[in-house]
């Protein structure tokens, strides 16, 4: 403003001078004065021009400032609008919360709800049932074919905390009554019933009616786990279970799954069926400690002791070898004059998920009153191949496993039997199996003949 006033002032002075000075006055001014005046007026003009330029710049700056101010105003208005919206939403949320709180207050009972028990603590989850069921159809050479039996073999498990497990296995079998008598008989066998206490990572104490690890068949292969419906013949030379106590466990060897496993046990051991020491009276399955007359007593003086040690060596999943040695020895006759002993070597081999071979060799020896020392002996080897290993894209083929087995037994009393079995398993599912086998039997017992067996097995 000052600059503009100054410029206006100068212009006014010039005009005043031009108007006020008369012609004669002008005539009185010499050239020099005129030139000076002219120069002064030129300078004033230039000054005015500069001031005008400056005024223009200032006006531009002012216009820009005004634009920025307008934008700031707009932004401010938008912020104000947003704040108003958020405040509105906050108000709605607070109303909702207060409504919920009000409803919750109306619905909450006076007493707090009791805590729901954890799954771990509930009885139902500690109790499990496993097992298997089978139905067989058999046709023995020279006899009528028949549905042989229906077998139901549940295993009851009860876990008491982290370290206690009780397990019991039963076998319910339906059979015809004896010839010339009507009706049928349902037999129930207690296959095993044992209480296990995990003492630490390497030792487990088991007590009760124990499955004996003489070889691995009794513990790991019997029932539907076996790929062939019948037990191997030489398993008749060994007791499947015994009443007593056992220490067992496993020690890992490295990080790749290799391990050493062991079992040491003491059981009542075999006994005499008629109390004598005659060789034919050997009873491998008796002597459970409680007689029919309710007397509690071992049938002979001393129990039997046994042990097994096994080495499991995996190369990678599905490729492994296990080798085991086991044995048991103890008195068997009531007089305690004779001992029964057995040694078993077991082996299993897996080459891929499709191929396996397993077998056992067993030999026992026992003294007797009438036959001296008797030497029963036998072995079996079994192979299975799942056709899924052929990688054929054919229907049904991938569910088939071919199996075969050779087993032989000599009871030491003159009975010799050899058997060769070929067959298949059709896996309807991973737990429902339809098996078919033909057994070629060669024995000096005329009752032993070739047999065709079909079995439907279900493991649960």
């Amino acid at each position, binding site marked *: 403003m000052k600059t503009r006033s100054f410029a206006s002032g100068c212009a006014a002075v010039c005009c005043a001078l031009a108007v006020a000075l008369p012609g004669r006055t002008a005539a009185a001014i010499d050239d020099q004065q005129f030139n000076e005046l002219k120069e002064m007026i030129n300078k004033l003009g230039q000054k005015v021009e500069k001031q005008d330029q400056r005024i223009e710049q200032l006006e531009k700056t002012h216009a820009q400032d005004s634009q920025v101010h307008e934008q700031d105003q707009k932004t401010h208005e938008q912020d104000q609008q947003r704040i108003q919206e958020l405040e509105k939403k906050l108000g709605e949320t607070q109303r909702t919360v207060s409504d919920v709180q009000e409803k919750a207050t109306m619905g909450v009972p006076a007493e707090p709800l009791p805590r729901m028990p954890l799954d771990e603590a509930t009885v139902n989850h500690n109790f*499990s049932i496993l097992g298997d069921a089978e139905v067989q159809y058999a046709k023995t050479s020279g006899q009528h074919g028949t549905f042989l039996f229906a077998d139901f073999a549940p295993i009851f498990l*009860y876990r008491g905390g982290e370290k206690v497990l009780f*397990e019991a296995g039963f076998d319910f079998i339906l059979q015809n009554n004896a010839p010339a008598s009507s009706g049928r008989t349902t037999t129930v066998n207690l296959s095993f019933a044992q209480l296990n206490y995990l003492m630490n990572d390497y030792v*487990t104490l088991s007590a009760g009616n124990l*499955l004996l690890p003489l070889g691995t068949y009794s513990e790991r292969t019997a029932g*539907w*786990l076996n790929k062939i419906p019948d037990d191997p013949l030489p398993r008749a030379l060994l007791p499947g279970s015994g009443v007593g106590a056992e220490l067992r466990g496993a020690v890992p060897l490295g990080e790749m799954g290799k391990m050493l496993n062991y079992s040491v046990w003491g059981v009542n051991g075999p006994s005499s069926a008629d109390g004598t020491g005659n060789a034919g009276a050997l009873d491998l399955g008796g002597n459970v400690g409680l007689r029919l007359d309710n007397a509690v007593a071992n049938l002979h003086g001393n129990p039997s002791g046994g042990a097994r040690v096994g080495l499991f060596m995996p190369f990678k*999943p599905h490729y492994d070898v296990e080798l085991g040695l086991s044995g048991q020895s103890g008195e068997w006759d009531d007089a305690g004059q004779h001992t029964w002993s057995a040694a078993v070597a077991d082996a299993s081999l897996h080459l891929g998920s499709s191929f396996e071979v397993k077998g056992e060799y067993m030999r026992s020896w026992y003294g007797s009153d009438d036959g001296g020392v008797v030497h029963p002996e036998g072995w079996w080897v079994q192979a299975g191949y799942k056709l899924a*290993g052929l990688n054929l894209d054919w229907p049904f083929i991938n569910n088939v496993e071919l199996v075969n087995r050779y087993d032989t037994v000599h009871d030491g009393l003159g009975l010799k039997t050899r058997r060769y079995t070929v067959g298949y398993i059709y896996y309807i599912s991973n737990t429902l199996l339809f098996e078919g086998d033909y057994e070629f039997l060669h024995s000096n017992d005329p009752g032993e003949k070739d047999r065709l067996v079909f079995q439907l097995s279900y493991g649960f």
Partner: protein
Amino acid sequence: MKSINPIGPFKSRLRTALSLAVVAAALVPLAPATAAEDKGETTSKTEKPAEQRGAADTSKAKPKAAPKKLTGAELYSMHCNRCHPERYPTERTAAQWKTILLHMRVRANLPAEQSRTILKYLQDNSGR
């Protein structure tokens, strides 16, 4: 004492033929599989030095790599399939698997640590 019945020639031939068929069926597919695995191992063995050819001298000085610890799935596959077809983890609840693994630890003489690793795998993938 009765002697063992002589084996009929027809039965003998039939038995031999069946045995051979089963053994052949078992071994023939195994051979290529094994060969393929061997080849795979050989290839990997030859590929590694090729990749590390430039650092051949330094690789000699490197310590041997520690073996990989087996996973729960691998241990499950390794141990359980020895005796029975594998069960799907979803077939049982987490609590049921705990009871069953205790049973299997005793029955199959499984090492405690491996048993726990298998249990974790089964519980992580259990039906509930």
